[in-house]
């Protein structure tokens, strides 16, 4: 009887898992396997794929643009991840410490609002702001007697343009996660600390920060993956230019797949990105075990 019950429970367990498994199989596993398969083929979406062995991998090794493009992506990661993480955290602390409920609500909305707006629509506006000759940014600079900045026409400034936009548009996400994380810290811990004579700084380092580590870790993982896969911001604002100066790996995959109709090679490049993200995520989880505190009680 006990065994039959165990079988029944296991069955029920799998049944509960089924919806998630089906979604995973259709939207993650199948495309992954398909990409692996297509990376050995020449495929233009319309006509049947032809097997071409390792040709795509050979092309991958010889692709001169790839090095610069991976380098660009790395630069975005190195700039954007710490920036989003710290600015998001600071904003969350600031808003969390606001006492008035009304103002808390207002700040929260203002910071999160850009996330809700369609990226494509605001990107058009930002493009106008950034225009070298007629843009608002340079007009404002000129009021202070400063020279115009070639926001979208210079390999250095183009990063600043994307970073400023990205921060404005997406910092609401880490902010919100941190904000919720902060609210979930039980108030009684602070009260107990206060009774024990802890000051604010001690409470912060002994209570807030340790209990926030799971949130920080979560934000780190998703921000990092988001930054490696960055697409919208350069696609909409810089078009990857000037030249290849702000082209990221995802923009490049899109270009190969949909402009050059080389789906096979695009899959090869995408696989390389998959390997990079997978290794980084494994590394993060390994390192994460050392500093993330899950146990609250």
């Amino acid at each position, binding site marked *: 009887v006990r065994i039959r019950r165990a079988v029944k429970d296991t069955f029920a367990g799998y049944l509960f898992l089924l919806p998630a498994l089906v979604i995973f199989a259709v939207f993650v596993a199948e495309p992954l396997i398909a990409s692996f398969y297509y990376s050995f083929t020449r495929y233009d979406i319309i006509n049947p794929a032809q097997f071409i062995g390792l040709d795509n991998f050979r092309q991958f090794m010889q692709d001169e643009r790839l090095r610069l493009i991976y380098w660009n992506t790395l630069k975005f990661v190195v700039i954007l991840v710490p920036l989003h993480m710290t600015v998001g955290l600071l904003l969350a602390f600031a808003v969390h410490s606001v006492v008035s409920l009304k103002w808390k609500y207002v700040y929260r909305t203002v910071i999160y609002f850009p996330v809700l707006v369609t990226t494509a629509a605001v990107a058009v506006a930002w493009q106008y702001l950034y225009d070298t000759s007629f843009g608002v940014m340079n007009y404002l600079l000129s009021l202070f007697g400063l020279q115009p900045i070639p926001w979208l026409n210079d390999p250095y400034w183009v990063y600043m343009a994307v970073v400023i936009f990205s921060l404005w548009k997406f910092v609401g996400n880490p902010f919100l996660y941190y904000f919720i994380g902060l609210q979930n810290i039980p108030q009684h811990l602070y009260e107990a600390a206060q009774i024990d004579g802890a000051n604010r700084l001690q409470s912060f380092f002994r209570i807030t920060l340790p209990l926030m580590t799971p949130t920080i870790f979560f934000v780190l993982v998703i921000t990092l993956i988001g930054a490696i896969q960055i697409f919208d911001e350069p696609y909409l604002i810089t078009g990857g230019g*000037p030249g290849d100066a702000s082209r990221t790996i995802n923009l490049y995959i899109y270009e190969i797949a949909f402009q050059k109709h080389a789906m096979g090679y695009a899959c090869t490049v995408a696989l390389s990105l998959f390997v990079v993200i997978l290794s980084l995520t494994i590394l993060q989880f390994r390192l994460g075990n050392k500093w993330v505190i899950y146990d609250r009680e």
Partner: protein
Amino acid sequence: MRKGIALLLAVVMVFSLLGCGKNSSDSSSDNPEKVELTLAYPGNDSKREDLEKFLKKFEEKYPHIKVKLLFVPNNGWADYFNKLETMAAGGKAPDVIRVAIEGIQMFVKRGMALPLDEYMATNPDAIEQIDDIHPKLQAPAVIDGKTYGFAWDWNNVVIHFNTDLLKKAGLPLPPKDWTLDDFLRYARAMTTEEGGKKTYGFAIPNYYFGASAWLFNNEASVLNEDMTESRLDDPNAIEVIQLFHDLIYKYEVSPVPSPNTDSITQLMNGQVGMIAAGRWPFGSYEKNNFTSVDVQFLPVLKTQQVIFGFGIFAAMKATKHPKEAYLLSAFLSSADSQRELLHQDSIPARKSVMAEVLPNTPASNWKVFEESVELAKPVESPADYAGVSEIFDRYMSSVLSNQMDAATAMQKAKAEIDSLLAKSQYK
């Protein structure tokens, strides 16, 4: 209760199926089966009203066909074609698509376009007076002896002037044979700064079609005659790209173009005095009540070789209703269609409509649109157009942002284009 509803549904379905069967068996002779076609048109739906009004006439003529309009937002022809292609790959290909010369080869060589000859032979009356369509424009719609559509609209590239700025600079409209020196004189005269408001002489055409027009005028081109190799390393080509660079950094008469610069708006706002475009901006001019505009041929460089691009309504091979798709393609090529849909847009491809519509263009020198058809040469549009134009645009942006000199950029662009064409699947 639930069983009752299920039973009721089943009964309804069975009867509706019976109804269908009866309909289609009856209809074979004089009451043909109802058909729905999807027509893909690029852009947001600014043309929706006009198109819907016109398609009503089609549905009146062929009551059994209903046309569903599908507007495809895009940033350029290549992007539009990519989206259609992705729809086709997903099994959702539209039945009829508006397609420009830039995409015709691609759709034909990849086996996505339907040759219409068979349907033209069985139903020749569906096309109105085919010899009214300018033969020069119709020619590229016929590939390997097969017709894929009927030239509907076309464009060349001319200089558009903001006439208020011309007047302010004390300059008349230049003559047809104006030279590069004249052009620079005009650009300099219109470049001004007043009270913090900067006006530039000329917006550089940083797009494939516009830049190709300038290359043609300097006896250069992106590709060779049979479109198998690039000619961008030719000194004449480098000279043109260098000129674009100089207009920004040496003569300082042009703004640095941003990735999606809208030069039409810049001309209307008085931010630039001249732009290079076809007749397509006139729709925006009309919408904004902008009438201070005139046009002239591009300045003579080594020659004066006008460029043209044109569009057709092609039927897709994947359509389940090829006969009806042909009828729609033919109907859309009619004089009425061009008259109603192209009154302030591209140039109509029918000689009769051209003569009728062009004089209504607010530009006094509208004749340049009509005259140039005889001189015009088609823009180079290989099956790999999307890839070629991407490479060209990328290197142009490097030059115009002062990141690379014209010669190096064009040599690199040539190498990349050559390698793309050598590996082409469409040879």
